[in-house]
């Protein structure tokens, strides 16, 4: 809105005063309230100062002294003329506002920033779209802000702070109060295209202290099972009628009544219990209720397909409906373009507020001419008639109509990828919920890959642990979630696809073999199509899917071990198998009467039972049972099949005249298959052992994987990159050398720009060569000189040594010996170098000559000599 003209006529003033009174009437309730509480407040403050001293867990260390302002840009340290103007406008607005509404607290308009410069709040918001796709949606964005910053309580819980720092500083020090939080979040949300506003208002104690101990942890809330309404097909024309119900309806009714009575009783009991609990929990009431200043973010519906307006608490990153009990009132709100003051009554918290910012009756604006939504037409006209006059008075003098919000003085918000990944300050964060504790870590912070741990407690004081859930990331063994139930002792590990044994879920009470455990697998990754293996001390059940032999189920019963050996394991002393049950899916290629559905090997009884699949139009299935006796008869002959060895029940005896003739063959086949099944059972046991061993190893090693795209952590790629850089560097050096012009010093002696004559060229060549020759000789001389010097030195020392050999202490002798060896080494090296130089010098000379002949500048002129 614009500012009133200074030269307001007296009459108008008087009139407005009257109207102001009128307007005040609806606000009276609130006014009284505030006065009451303010009185109470003082009282309480006194009391509180005596009683509760221990509340501030951490002193607000975020003071100005700690901030390094020297590196901040100029816009932080001064105001542009436009900003100055805006401040004047704001001051004017504030004056009029306090005049018109003397009972309301002063507005939060232009607190000072970290450089002690007053800045208008709207210009502190710097809309920025973050480069991380995770931060494109409001929920992740809010979660990030709540994780990234460390919350500092307001210096005075009843007043807005006198300062408001830029997001740059807040992000740098990773701490801030609720206003810093909401400013940052608002900047990010507006940047992402949301219609977001910073709100200055009043919140509940839990909200202001970031106290979630009364909230249920969102991770513990079980997703509500979607009750699928089974679509009942309309009864078809010829659907059969159900058979007549012959039971007594009266009895049914009585039964139902009885059941209902029991249920009601149960419910009543539960309700009482719950009420008791609630009472217990909400025993403490806040004496400062309704006065605690808080700042949060309002997101209005419309943009980014937001269907309904909602609040975001920046401390916790949670969203609340605008009707929520935690939000007790709104003084004002602003975005990067404008500032609105709430003119609605907040006696019923925020439940009755209408967020139609185009309505000047409900929301008094500071600047006109911003593109705020117009007054929606659905509003009842008469609603605002009695007090809209004064609003007009406040805003209609349009001196500053063309004035709009200056650009933000804050730099673009920048978050480095490292900081983004680390998220929380120091990469760790703990949140206490009702009966739950949530701990978060940055990835790679813990060397076992732990990123999140949720501990659930039985009681409110959080002493008895119920269960622990741990989430992992980047584990080499693909462990994703570990669920430990402290009550039953049951551990459940969940794996992502990619475990070497295709493990999906592993639930167990102990890692000892042959105990109760369930292993589930990614069956598509396994050759044998195993889905699940359940074990109890005496049985093992396996479920299969998608096998070519259509096996779907195998159940093995074990007997007790025969001998007590020192080493009892499946490998050395397998338990005897008592019974194997196998089930198969229907094989459509075979007739049902020949397709085995289930076969049971009773190994001790030497009996095999077969059950076949049921034909489609049948309710009974064929069965066959084989019994055999391994011992021959008394004469030692093999026993021939007799009818009592093969009992069978045929669904259609006429169709299949299966004679005894074919049974021996079938039986032999089954015997072989029995052996195979036993072998497979044994292999399964071995596999369990192997998996357990592997798991133990993995737990012990807990290696983490590093993505090949992660250039910072991936050592290999780092090495490779560095090597590449080195190669590049060397190449560069070489190129520089190659570009060195050996003719340049000689050409410089000649007058520039002229073409060389042949004589000159020859001279040039000779000079160059002779120069090079000289250099080679110089070098040789230098080496020679050094060599001689070393040799002389050595001789001198030797002489000295021989002279004083008798009087020398052992230390001196050692010194001498070490010197000698070093000197000898140096001499040897110099000798080598000299020899090498002698060898190479002529070659180098010839090479230069060759090069000179081929030099493009001389080639023409020297041709004749070649």
């Amino acid at each position, binding site marked *: 809105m614009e500012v009133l003209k200074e030269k307001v006529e007296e009459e108008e003033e008087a009139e407005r005063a009257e109207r102001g009174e009128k307007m005040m009437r609806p606000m009276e309730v609130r006014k009284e309230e505030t006065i009451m509480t303010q009185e109470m407040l003082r009282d309480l403050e006194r009391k509180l100062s005596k009683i509760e001293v221990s509340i501030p867990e951490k002193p607000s260390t975020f003071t100005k002294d700690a901030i390094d302002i020297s590196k901040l840009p100029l816009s932080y340290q001064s105001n542009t003329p436009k900003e100055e103007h805006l401040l004047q406008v704001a001051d004017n607005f504030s004056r009029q506002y306090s005049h018109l509404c003397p009972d309301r607290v002063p507005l939060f308009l232009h607190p000072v920033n970290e450089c002690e410069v007053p800045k208008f709040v709207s210009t502190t918001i710097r809309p920025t779209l973050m480069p991380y796709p995770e931060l494109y949606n409001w929920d992740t964005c809010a979660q990030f802000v709540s994780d990234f910053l460390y919350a500092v309580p307001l210096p005075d819980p009843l007043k807005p702070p006198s300062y408001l720092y830029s997001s740059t500083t807040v992000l740098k020090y990773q701490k801030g109060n609720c206003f810093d939080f909401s400013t940052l979040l608002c900047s990010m949300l507006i940047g992402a295209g949301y219609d977001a506003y910073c709100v200055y208002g009043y919140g509940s104690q839990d909200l202001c202290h970031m106290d979630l101990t009364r909230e249920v942890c969102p991770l513990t809330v079980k997703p509500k099972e979607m009750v699928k309404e089974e679509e009942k097909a309309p009864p*078809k*024309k*010829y*659907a*059969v*009628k159900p*058979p007549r119900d012959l039971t007594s309806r009266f009895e049914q009714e009585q039964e139902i009544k009885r059941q209902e009575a029991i249920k009601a009783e149960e419910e009543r009991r539960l309700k009482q219990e719950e009420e008791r609990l609630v009472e217990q929990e909400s025993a403490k009431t806040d004496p400062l209720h309704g006065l605690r200043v808080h700042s949060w973010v309002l997101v209005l519906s419309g943009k980014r397909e937001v269907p309904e307006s909602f609040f975001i608490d920046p401390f916790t990153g949670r969203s609340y409906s605008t009707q929520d009990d935690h939000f007790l009132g709104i003084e004002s709100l602003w975005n990067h373009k404008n500032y609105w003051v709430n003119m609605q009554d907040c006696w019923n918290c925020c439940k009755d507020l209408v967020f139609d910012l185009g309505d000047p009756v409900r929301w008094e604006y500071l600047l006109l001419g911003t593109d705020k939504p117009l007054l929606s037409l659905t509003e009842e006209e008469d609603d605002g008639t009695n007090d809209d006059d004064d609003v007009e008075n406040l805003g209609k003098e349009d001196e500053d109509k063309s004035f709009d919000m200056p650009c933000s003085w804050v730099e673009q918000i920048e978050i480095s990828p490292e900081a983004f990944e680390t998220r929380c300050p120091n990469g760790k964060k703990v949140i206490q919920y009702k009966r739950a504790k949530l701990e978060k870590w940055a990835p790679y912070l813990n060397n076992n890959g732990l990123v999140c741990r949720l501990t659930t407690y039985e009681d409110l004081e959080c002493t008895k642990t119920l269960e622990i859930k741990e989430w992992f990331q980047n584990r080499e063994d693909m462990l994703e979630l570990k669920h430990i139930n402290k009550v039953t002792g049951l551990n459940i590990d969940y794996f992502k696809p990619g475990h070497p044994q295709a493990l999906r879920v592993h639930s167990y009470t102990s890692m000892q073999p042959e105990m109760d455990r369930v292993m589930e697998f990614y069956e598509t990754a396994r050759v044998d199509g195993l889905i699940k293996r359940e074990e109890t001390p005496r049985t093992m059940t396996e479920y299969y899917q998608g096998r070519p032999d259509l096996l779907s189920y195998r159940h093995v019963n074990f007997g007790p071990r025969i001998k007590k050996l020192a080493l009892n394991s499946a490998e050395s002393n397998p338990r005897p198998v008592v019974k194997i049950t196998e089930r198969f899916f229907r094989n459509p290629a075979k007739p049902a009467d020949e397709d085995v559905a289930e076969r049971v090997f009773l190994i001790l009884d030497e009996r095999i039972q077969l059950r076949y699949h*049921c034909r489609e*139009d*049948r*309710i*009974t299935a064929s069965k066959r049972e084989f019994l055999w006796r391994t011992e021959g008869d008394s004469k030692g002959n*093999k026993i*021939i*099949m007799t009818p009592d060895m093969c009992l069978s*029940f045929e*669904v259609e*005896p006429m169709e299949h*005249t299966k*004679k*005894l*003739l*074919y049974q*021996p*063959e079938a039986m032999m086949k089954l015997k072989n298959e029995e052996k195979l099944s036993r072998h497979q059972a044994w292999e399964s046991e071995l596999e369990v052992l192997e998996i357990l061993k592997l798991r133990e190893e993995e737990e012990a090693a807990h290696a983490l994987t590093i993505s090949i795209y992660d250039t910072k952590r991936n050592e290999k790629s780092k090495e490779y990159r560095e090597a590449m850089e080195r190669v590049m560097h060397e190449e560069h050096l070489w190129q520089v050398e190659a570009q060195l012009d050996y003719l340049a010093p000689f050409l410089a002696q000649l007058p520039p720009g002229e073409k060389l004559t042949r004589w000159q060229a020859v001279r040039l060549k000779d000079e160059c060569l002779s120069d090079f020759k000289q250099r080679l000789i110089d070098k040789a001389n230098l080496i020679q000189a050094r060599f001689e010097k070393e040799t002389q030195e050595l001789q001198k020392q030797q002489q000295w040594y021989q002279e004083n050999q008798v009087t020398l202490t052992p230390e001196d002798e050692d010194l001498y010996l070490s010197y000698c060896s070093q000197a000898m080494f140096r001499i040897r090296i110099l000798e080598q170098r000299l020899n090498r130089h002698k060898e190479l010098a002529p070659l180098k000379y010839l090479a230069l000559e060759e090069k000179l002949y081929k030099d493009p500048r001389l080639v023409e002129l020297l041709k004749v000599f070649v």
Partner: protein
Amino acid sequence: MNRLCDMEPRVMDDEMLKLAVGEQGPRDEAGQLAKQEGILFKDVLSLQLDFQNILRIDSLWQFENLRKLQLDNNVIEKIEGLENLTHLVWLDLSFNNIEAIEGLDTLVNLEDLSLFNNRISKIDSLDALAKLQVLSLGNNQIGNMMNIIYLRRFKDLRTLSLSGNPVAEAEDYRTCICAYLPDLVYLDFRRIDDQTKELAEMKHQYSVDELKHRESLMQARLEDERARREELAEHEAAFVEHLNGPFLFDSMYAEDVEGSQLSHLPGVGELLQTYKDKFVIICLNIFEYGLKQQEKRKAELDTFMGCVQEAVQEKQEQGKHKIAKFEEKHLLSLSSIRDESELTNFEIKMAEYSEDITELANVLMTLEMQLVEQLEETINMFERNIIDLVGLFVENVQSLMAQCRDLENHHHEKLLEIAISTLEKIVKGELDEDLPDAVRSLFVDKDTIVNAVGASHDIHLLKIDNREDELVTRVNSWCAHLVDKIHKDEIMRNRRRVKEINQYIDHVQSELDSLECSDLLD
């Protein structure tokens, strides 16, 4: 041919077959069993009857499941008696005296056929052998290369032997066969290499292309024919075939001599045309209506069948569930009975168990009876509905046919008028146009011409009546058949289920009895 016939030619009989089966049957342990029990011809899969001097194939009808049959080196002169061996995959008739290929029309599964060293001079009668892969026709008397073209219809044919035939002596024998049978892999037991194939293709390209063209034309014609037949079948199912055009009208005039003569009269042509148009429109109406009604009937039938299926399925599931529960219990109780040592307890348990069996029988039977009742009701409802539908259809068709008759009557009147006026003109000698003599002869007197027109009219009415009667009788008989079949099916289903239940109960009971016996014996 070149074998010594030192033995009497023989005819296959049971004895010979038994001997052969016994010899080729299982050995060792199973063989002893086989001796004890004997082997059913039905179960034999492969049979070898070579060097038996067989003259005539006979007595093979019992070998329903035979896969492989060897009849080589006999003196068979005619292929016969193989009609029942529909599962046959391999048939060896080499070294016989067969003169013509015949009697193989039912062997649709045959893949390997050997007719080596016979007296065959023409390849034919193999149409049914769609799966044929190997054909051996060496040492025969096939002389005409055109026989190869006959083999083009076997898409799976990979191996062919024709050596030793007159045709194989031709110069381009190999290339010719390769060209006409491009999918062939082995010829005369030798693999056809790519070079030969290419050569053959080049050499015979034109004739093969021509052949292909002819074949494709033939194929197209056949497909047209089939499509037409299918359409007709569809119309027939709707009982309105030949009503989607002027067929009925044309048939009315087909046998009507007078009618066609009268059409030469002045003005009759136009009259006939309008009459025809109107008639055809009504016919089309009937046709459309018929198709629509057919769809309706079909939908009705489908819903009915679906519902019946559902109900049956549900009861089946219930039955299966009951049986599964019973079996679970039964397993436990049987073993506990077995372990029981005390006689009184044993008897109590036995009694309990047999009670359980009765209970199960009762439950299953109750389920079945419920289903029967439900289905009966549903079937009756369906019967009523379908009869109503058919009745409605007949009624409407009849009313449309009545329109046809009206048209005919109208036309008849008009025609009579024209005829009489023409007669008058002729009598007066005013007729300008020339009429054919046959027509002119009708106009002798009034009676003649009236009779002629009347006869034509009668024929037309008769045709219409016939068509109508045909439609009505057919639709009614269809309906009766359908209802009858549904009833019968239901009865059959019920019988089968009852039988199944009884069998099962008997089985369980006998198990119990045997236990009792054995225990008493102990």
